[in-house]
């Protein structure tokens, strides 16, 4: 597309990057067709092509963000379906990240919105605070209906709805330390313990530790780790996100110095997409650019890493799995086959739900900030999943697990929980009641 930026504007490296992205878009419109919000709302402004145009107009004119632009950018799920579809290779992710930072810097949100965002950014990335908040949510649940009727407080009501009824205690999987292997060591990796996941489903990383230990892989839970920054990154809180990224880079590279590092293992694909982008996020930071790129290159989704270990093919078992590919997995990281091959080799019959490219509406904090669109997408996703008539659902992202679990009776597990079970681990508690 044609762009018109003055040379002075292009001196800003962020603008220069965005200009290059805009130049690649030929306005063909292909991406509109696979965008969940366009498919739901039918307005070009809620499509990738429309958003790209809104962003272009805002940046070219060096204008502060305004309500119209913010409305449509806020509705974007960052699912990156548009990037899978785009034949021209337009990097929508980096463009919308830039727009979100611009919004955060130049636009004052209404008070209620600011409050909700501040709370999310202050609580979610910190497991301790999050655990406390969830316990409080248990007490607050009876007020959910009431909160949802008070306009600006509605998101708080939605949060209560999404909060699980039981809160797990802290798990060994988030305690820093090295999980050594007895016998032959096949590798040494660091793991992301994460922020929300260990609170919501500690079973995921516990299964990962067990499985990797049996496979002879030493796993380090690093010191001074925590949230990878993805949640705040998607809210445009650049400083907070970069700070998290730097902290994680330091934590992981310390593991490398201490005894080598083959990979950084991530069990939440939402985080994986961001960590694989650290190299880009920190490219302008002379102290961190190189280190961040190194960490990005080491980052592996757990299923990517397991695919390299040549697990044996097991006998078929009588359990059919609907595999839900998280957007961050299929669009963000382009991992499409690995999880399904692993599950199938482990003896499960795998089915693909229809409209697999469409987001389930979870998308980080989206289900709290945009409950209407999120709920519509959730219903559509569950319809497609249930139509497979599978016994259980497997996926690779905690956000999807929480979202989908609130809408169906089918058990939903992380892929690695099923793999751990198949390769000698305990049966996942969720399946205990079934045979």
């Amino acid at each position, binding site marked *: 597309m044609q762009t018109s930026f003055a040379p002075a504007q292009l001196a800003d490296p962020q603008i220069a990057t965005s200009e290059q992205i805009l130049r690649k878009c030929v306005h063909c*419109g292909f991406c509109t067709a696979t965008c969940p919000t366009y498919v739901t709302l039918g307005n070009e*402004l809620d499509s990738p092509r429309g958003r790209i145009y*809104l962003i272009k107009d805002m940046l070219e004119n060096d204008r502060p963000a305004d309500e119209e632009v913010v409305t449509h950018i806020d509705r974007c799920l960052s699912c990156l379906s548009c990037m899978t579809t785009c034949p*021209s290779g337009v990097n929508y992710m980096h463009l919308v990240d830039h727009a979100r930072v611009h919004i955060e810097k130049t636009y004052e949100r209404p008070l209620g919105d600011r409050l909700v965002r501040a709370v999310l950014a202050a609580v979610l990335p910190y497991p301790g605070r999050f655990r406390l908040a969830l316990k409080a949510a248990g007490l607050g649940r009876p007020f959910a209906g009431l909160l949802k009727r008070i306009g600006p407080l509605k998101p708080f009501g939605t949060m209560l709805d999404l909060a699980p009824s039981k809160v797990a205690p802290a798990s060994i999987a988030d305690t820093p330390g090295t999980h050594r292997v007895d016998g032959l060591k096949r590798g040494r990796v660091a793991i992301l313990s994460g922020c929300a996941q260990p609170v919501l489903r500690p079973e995921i990383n516990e299964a990962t530790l067990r499985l990797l230990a049996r496979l002879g892989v030493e796993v380090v839970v690093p010191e001074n780790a925590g949230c990878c920054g993805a949640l705040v990154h998607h809210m445009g809180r650049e400083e907070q996100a970069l700070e998290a990224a730097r902290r994680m880079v330091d934590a992981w590279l310390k593991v490398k110095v201490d005894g080598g590092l083959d990979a950084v293992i991530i069990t939440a694909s939402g985080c994986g997409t961001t960590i694989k982008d650290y190299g880009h996020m920190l490219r302008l930071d002379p102290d961190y650019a190189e280190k961040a790129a190194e960490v990005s290159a080491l980052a592996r989704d757990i299923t990517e890493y397991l695919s390299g270990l040549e697990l044996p093919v097991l006998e078929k078992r009588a359990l059919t799995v609907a595999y839900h590919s998280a957007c961050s997995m299929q669009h963000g990281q382009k991992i499409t086959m690995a999880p399904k091959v692993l599950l199938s080799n482990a003896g499960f019959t795998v089915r693909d739900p229809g409209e697999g490219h469409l987001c389930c509406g979870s998308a980080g904090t989206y289900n709290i900030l945009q409950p209407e669109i999120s709920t519509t997408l959730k219903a559509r996703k569950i319809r497609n999943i249930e139509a497979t008539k599978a016994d259980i659902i497997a996926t690779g992202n905690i956000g999807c697990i929480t979202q989908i679990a609130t809408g169906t009776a089918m058990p939903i597990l992380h892929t690695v929980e099923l793999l751990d079970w198949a390769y000698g681990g305990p049966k996942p508690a969720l399946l205990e009641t079934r045979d």
Partner: protein
Amino acid sequence: MLDRRETIVADLADLLPPGCLVSDVRGLVPFETDAFIAYRRVPLAVALPETTAQVAAVLKYCSRYGIPVVPRGAGTSLSGGAIPQEDAVVIGLSKMTRILDIDFPNRTATVEAGVTNISISEAVMPEGFFYAPDPSSQLACTIGGNIGMNSGGAHCLKYGVTTNNLLGVKMVLFDGTIIELGGKALDAAGYDLLGLVCGSEGQLGIVTEATVRLLARPEGARPVLFGFSSSEEAGACVAEVIGSGIIPVAIEFMDKPAIGICEAFAKAGYPMDVEALLIVEVEGSEAEMDATLASIIDIARRHGVTTIRESQSATEAALIWKGRKSAFGATGRIADYICMDGTVPLSKLSEVLRKTGEIAARYGLRVANVFHAGDGNMHPLILYNINDPEDAARAEAAGNDILKLCVDAGGCLTGEHGVGIEKRDLMLHQFTQADLNQQMAARAAFDPQWIMNPSKVFPLEGRPTA
């Protein structure tokens, strides 16, 4: 008109449900163009009705006050058909996406105009049917837009273009009158008005529902890649295949630059060491496919084919088509482009290809060719830098020369993308003023007020009313 903007917007808001009107200045900008990005105009407002009745209400209002209207589907037009004008209300069909009826015994589907082309085939695929016309943009473009442009696609060589597969429409006229043309049966009584509406570029009315023909999927289909060491040889091969009476389902052409562009996106395994590539698809039973292929291979050998590669699996076949159908979009990886759409008699294919290359060279521009060769529908992509005004002017001039070349070779200006804004002023190269006057008279019979997509198709000079 512009100073009445506020009143118009307020009135339109009364006619539409919430969330169905764009009037914010920022929000209007993304509607200023379609896939013909060389030209842009921000509209006065954008209406996104959800029902035929709402379309009718908006049209009735606009006609009462003489406000121009521009229909818009997915905005993938390559000739600027959906580009607004400053004093116009855009009526977008993107919220009308319901599939209303699928009638397998009669082999028809009735859908709202905003349904995408591919959704029709997807909806009937489990029962073994499909909707034949397959523009490369089929993922995104709407059936309403297909009717507007009488769109074609790779598989139209055998199955015909939109007009050959359209059975009926519900349409709203300029003054809000709702009419129905055709129906589920093959031929309707009276004049073939449907034939007139198909390809009328949104100037005769706004289609809100369409009934289309469904076809049974063939037993099997197999795309085969034929590589040549020159475009001329490939062109001559196409002419001989068609001349010999063989009708494959599709014959698509790509030259070397186009192959490189498509392979970069789709990784389809196209041969990279050839100058020109034909994708020939045959279908039917295994025996039928083998027989047709054998005759085509014979002909290709006579034209010095260097590589023949059959797709070995459904996945491979899908990738071959994905690459081809993404060609224009994927071009964005290397340059901006204008896509030409002339048709030529097959006997002139090689010559026109050669002269196209010469024209581009004369202007110092690169060109990539990827097109529906079987029906002589050429799509030279002129590559340029849209941020450089001189380059852009050169590209436009080269485009005009190429289209004139097609007309002079006995072909026409547009095979399937329509006239729109892009070829409006070239119409006089193809038609005399008397011809155009007759066409405008037919148009005026539907829209005497001349408010429907008024600035398109006909040259701005020499209009009866304007």
